[in-house]
């Protein structure tokens, strides 16, 4: 099932003990990896094991994501076909570019499956076509992969991450424009040191909705960082109350704590509640339009609630 999408924990697909332990770490989503974590000679074994695991392990509210091999490899299509029978919530498609995403999307739709796709943008072309990728049917999010991306553009990875700043921003903006999730690249260390928290701070400030991790130790920090604080939740509720009152009274933008509350502020408040796992309720209906010749009091209606527009 799909719920909150803050933390995505990678788990090797050919390791039964880790597949069993995966759901207990508190991650919102578990990525069962058939790609880099599996040796070439074990691709068949991992594919069968993950398919069996999906039918038997009680994942509860944890979203099941399977990273298949790229469709350009000898394993990719077999992986996807097998997973369409096994029924994970989501396929994470590596080396995602419009053509590969369209192919995967078509296979999923032809199978009548309810599986969504996260596009793993990790090539220069993938990043540059992020908006196009995000608009392909059944794509529910864009996932940035820094390691392959930097290799593709010939840059060297650094602690401060200057070489991936543009790509990160591009992915966030494209995903937001498509009204889907944006998932940041994992921190590649396993410690819980300053570097991890500094990287996580960048993830949050740039606007990513989620972040991947390779160590269970990172899950809690990610969940905390990408969840709105109690103060933010309270403010969001007050914004929605003020907006509802304004709508009832047929007013335009209303003031709260001395600041104007208009459509973008309302949309952000609704997103804050959703990221907290709370129901923001139905969007307020804009006040009836003014009669001919009257000046409209509200320049525009509320920004459409983006949740629900896409699968």
């Amino acid at each position: 099932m799909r719920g909150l999408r803050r933390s995505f924990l990678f788990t090797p697909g050919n390791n039964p003990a880790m597949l069993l332990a995966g759901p207990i770490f508190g991650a919102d989503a578990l990525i069962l990896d058939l790609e880099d974590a599996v040796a070439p000679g074990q691709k068949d074994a991992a594919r069968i094991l993950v398919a069996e695991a999906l039918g038997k392990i009680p994942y509860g509210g944890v979203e099941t994501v399977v990273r298949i091999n790229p469709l350009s490899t000898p394993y990719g299509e077999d992986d996807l076909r097998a997973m369409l029978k096994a029924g994970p919530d989501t396929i994470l498609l590596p080396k995602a570019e419009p053509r590969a995403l369209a192919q995967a999307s078509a296979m999923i739709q032809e199978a009548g499956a309810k599986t969504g796709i996260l596009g793993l943008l990790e090539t220069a072309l993938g990043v540059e076509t992020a908006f196009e990728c995000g608009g392909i049917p059944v794509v529910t999010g864009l996932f940035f992969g820094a390691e392959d991306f930097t290799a593709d553009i010939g840059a060297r990875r650094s602690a401060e991450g200057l070489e991936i700043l543009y790509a990160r921003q591009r992915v966030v903006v494209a995903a937001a424009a498509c009204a889907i999730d944006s998932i940041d690249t994992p921190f590649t260390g396993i410690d819980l040191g300053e570097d991890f928290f500094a990287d996580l701070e960048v993830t949050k400030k740039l606007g990513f909705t989620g972040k991947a991790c390779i160590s269970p130790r990172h899950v809690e920090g990610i969940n905390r960082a990408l969840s709105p604080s109690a103060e933010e939740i309270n403010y969001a509720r007050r914004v929605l109350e003020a907006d509802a009152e304004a709508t009832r009274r047929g007013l335009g933008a209303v003031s709260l704590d001395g600041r104007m509350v208009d459509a973008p502020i309302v949309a952000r408040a609704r997103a804050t509640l959703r990221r907290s796992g709370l129901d923001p309720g139905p969007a307020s209906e804009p006040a009836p339009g003014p009669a001919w010749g009257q000046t409209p009091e509200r320049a525009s209606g509320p920004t459409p609630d983006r949740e629900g527009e896409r699968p």
Partner: protein
Amino acid sequence: MVLKERAQAGSLESSDCLVSVEPAGEGLGLQLSVRSIVMNQFGEAIREVARETLEAAGVRDALVDINDRGALDFVIRARLRTALERAGMKEPIP
């Protein structure tokens, strides 16, 4: 279904099992050997999973060895399916 060659799948890590399969002459039937760290508790259950998986694959004659390290049913089934496919079964096992 007839196996064409000897094949193996899985590992001896905890929660896994190492499965070996080998062709047997027609009419010799299934010869199933199981070793397990939980033999007393689950030996018969492991045999049952193996028999069901072999039957579903249509394998009638084979030598099958399972060295279990505490694998759950789905792991045993996955490793046996993999070994059978590696042994030359053409069609994916349902």
